[in-house]
């Protein structure tokens, strides 16, 4: 299997963005005296590299920390530990150490598309302002030039420029998501974080938006960090996939390799839950993942996944498996070499 795929992905010489040993903990205060309880470890010791021009998907259940990681990359949260390093024109910048002001120019280059296009657009502002706002904040364009740019963006995402004076309610869900995409693209970003960007859409609209994202990627050389839970969509659009569980990465691999044969039991379990659109391929209930995601405030000892893992041994509850290179990918499992797991 080694020969078919490139070398372990995260050793590529010049990633666009690297996340190094990132930790994001949220403080919990409770009770009468607001006593400090154990923190919620939303993201714990995550290292990941995003290569220029690729689509890297981040998958996992709710509570796996995938959205928090995406937001940290956008600079929404200050990490408790670790670094986020962004490269442009051959120079590396540690985003996580910059002040708000120093960060501003980089905010143009890393943008986000949100899940729910209805709640992420201000209902009281017309489309021209929703998109134009990004241009105003960064002082990019004014007056005639501003509206020309908005018109151009709308055309690119498949909307008629005449609609720019309309308000969000006049658009369908799919069209609103196109507006959200136009807004993310307004400042010519290099990296776009798509947080469940197609999850809320109907099947036929979802296909249109996936095609649009792929077209824009090839036209503009965009890099995507695609956060999703629908593995069918993820398989369709990703070059690589990073699987998260309870705040940690458990497996990072190329899409074909991961789907052909997962090396982490959690990846196998996730794949076993995909409802395949073919009645001849009904799944038996025996391979189902039982239980619920591990607590982030009071994580299990050893491997976070061991209480739900069908292959767990004594070692799994004692020692935390590090993310390490195995064959063509990275896996955090003590038994990665010996298990033979089923792909999708």
């Amino acid at each position, binding site marked *: 299997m080694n020969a078919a795929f490139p070398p372990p992905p995260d050793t590529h010489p010049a990633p666009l963005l690297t996340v190094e040993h990132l930790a994001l903990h949220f403080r919990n205060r409770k009770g009468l005296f607001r006593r400090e309880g154990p923190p919620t470890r939303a993201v714990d010791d995550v290292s990941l590299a995003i290569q220029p021009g690729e689509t890297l998907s981040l998958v996992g*259940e709710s509570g796996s920390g995938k959205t928090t990681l995406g937001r940290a990359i956008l600079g929404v949260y200050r990490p408790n530990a670790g670094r986020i390093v962004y490269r442009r024109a051959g120079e590396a910048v540690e985003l996580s150490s910059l002040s708000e002001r120093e960060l501003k120019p980089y905010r143009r280059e890393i943008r986000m598309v949100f899940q729910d296009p209805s709640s992420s657009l201000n209902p009281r502002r017309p489309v021209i302002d929703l998109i134009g706002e990004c241009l105003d904040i960064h002082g990019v364009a004014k007056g005639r030039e501003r509206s020309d740019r908005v018109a151009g963006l709308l055309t690119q995402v498949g909307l008629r420029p005449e609609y720019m004076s309309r308000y969000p309610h006049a658009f369908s869900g799919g069209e609103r998501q196109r507006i959200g995409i136009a807004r993310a693209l307004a400042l010519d970003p290099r990296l776009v974080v798509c947080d469940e960007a197609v999850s809320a859409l*109907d*099947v036929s609209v979802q296909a249109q938006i996936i095609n649009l994202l792929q077209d824009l990627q090839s036209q503009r050389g965009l890099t995507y960090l695609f956060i999703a839970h629908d593995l069918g969509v993820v398989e*369709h*659009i990703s070059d690589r996939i990073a699987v998260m569980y309870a705040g940690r990465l458990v497996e990072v691999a190329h899409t*074909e390799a991961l789907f052909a044969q997962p090396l982490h039991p959690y990846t196998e379990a996730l794949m076993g839950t995909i409802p395949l659109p073919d009645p001849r391929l009904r799944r038996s*209930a025996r391979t189902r993942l039982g239980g619920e995601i591990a607590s982030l405030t009071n994580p299990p000892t050893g491997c976070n996944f061991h209480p739900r893992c069908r292959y767990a041994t004594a070692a799994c509850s004692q020692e935390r498996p590090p993310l390490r290179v195995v064959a063509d990918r990275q896996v955090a499992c003590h038994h990665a070499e010996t298990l033979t797991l089923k792909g999708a």
Partner: protein
Amino acid sequence: MDSSANLIEIRNLKTHFKTDDGLVKAVDGIDLDVPRGKVLCVVGESGSGKSIMARSIMRIVQPPGRIVAGSIDYAAESGHQVDLAALDPIGAQMRDIRGGDFGMVFQEPMTALSPVHTVGDQVTEALLLHRQVDRNAATAAAAAMLARVGLPDPTGTLRRFPFELSGGMRQRVCIAMALICRPKLLIADEPTTALDVTTQAQVLDLIGELQAEMGLTVLFITHNLGVVAQIADSVAVMYLGRVVEYADVDTLFHDPRHPYTQALLRSVPRPGLRGARLPTIRGSVPHALDRPTGCLFQTRCDVAVAGLCDRELPPTHRVAPGHLVRCVHANQARAVGEPA
């Protein structure tokens, strides 16, 4: 179809909403048989009227929505045939059917449960209202049902409030509530859409097991074709308030005849097509107040015939026993979607 084989037969059902902007025909002339003891999935995109159809059966359509025409014949256990559409929605008979014979599970388990009542109060409520049992017996039955739907520590859970439970556990409580009176019909309206994929798989398994165990008839509403393939016996595809195709699940996935069904199935990402462009349906679902004339799908259909499809509503063709298609091309359907 033999009438005794169907628990519910819907004929020409129309549920309309009179709004300030105009008349919204959410359900506009549905004919649908719900076979007894089977899982019928209703699929459709937002605005197809699938939820309103289900709520019409339960008679819980909120004003300004109103059933304006048609019948919903329910073949009750007693052998009586009842037209639900003709009943008073808050009358004793309908209330008894709604809570006793039918159970419903909704999409959002948090909003479907009362935040200020314990799980125990909510699960036993229907039993105390619709079955002659005392509180102790009801509590015991509720604990047994919670155990059956897979909640750990059922007696402890009875004393808890919904906010103390996770999303998946709440949905299990909702299923227990819907099934506590041992209903004949379970209506599940997107019950797994708000859940994680892993929890979704668990809940689907559970509904499948309970269906077999209790001989339930299940009306399962979803927009996820993967879910349909996993649990359905038969499938009705809805578009803009009408059923456009009805077939058993294998036929629907492997020999779909309506251009909308075909297009919908093609637009699902599937293995082996990675990175390729997904086939799409052009345009979007028309606005409820701006319904096309003739065939409702003609504005987005690749095989629509001008002068025919935009003039008249196509009749429903029976292309095979149990396979109904509302399209003028239904009979030469193998060719539909292929280049001429």
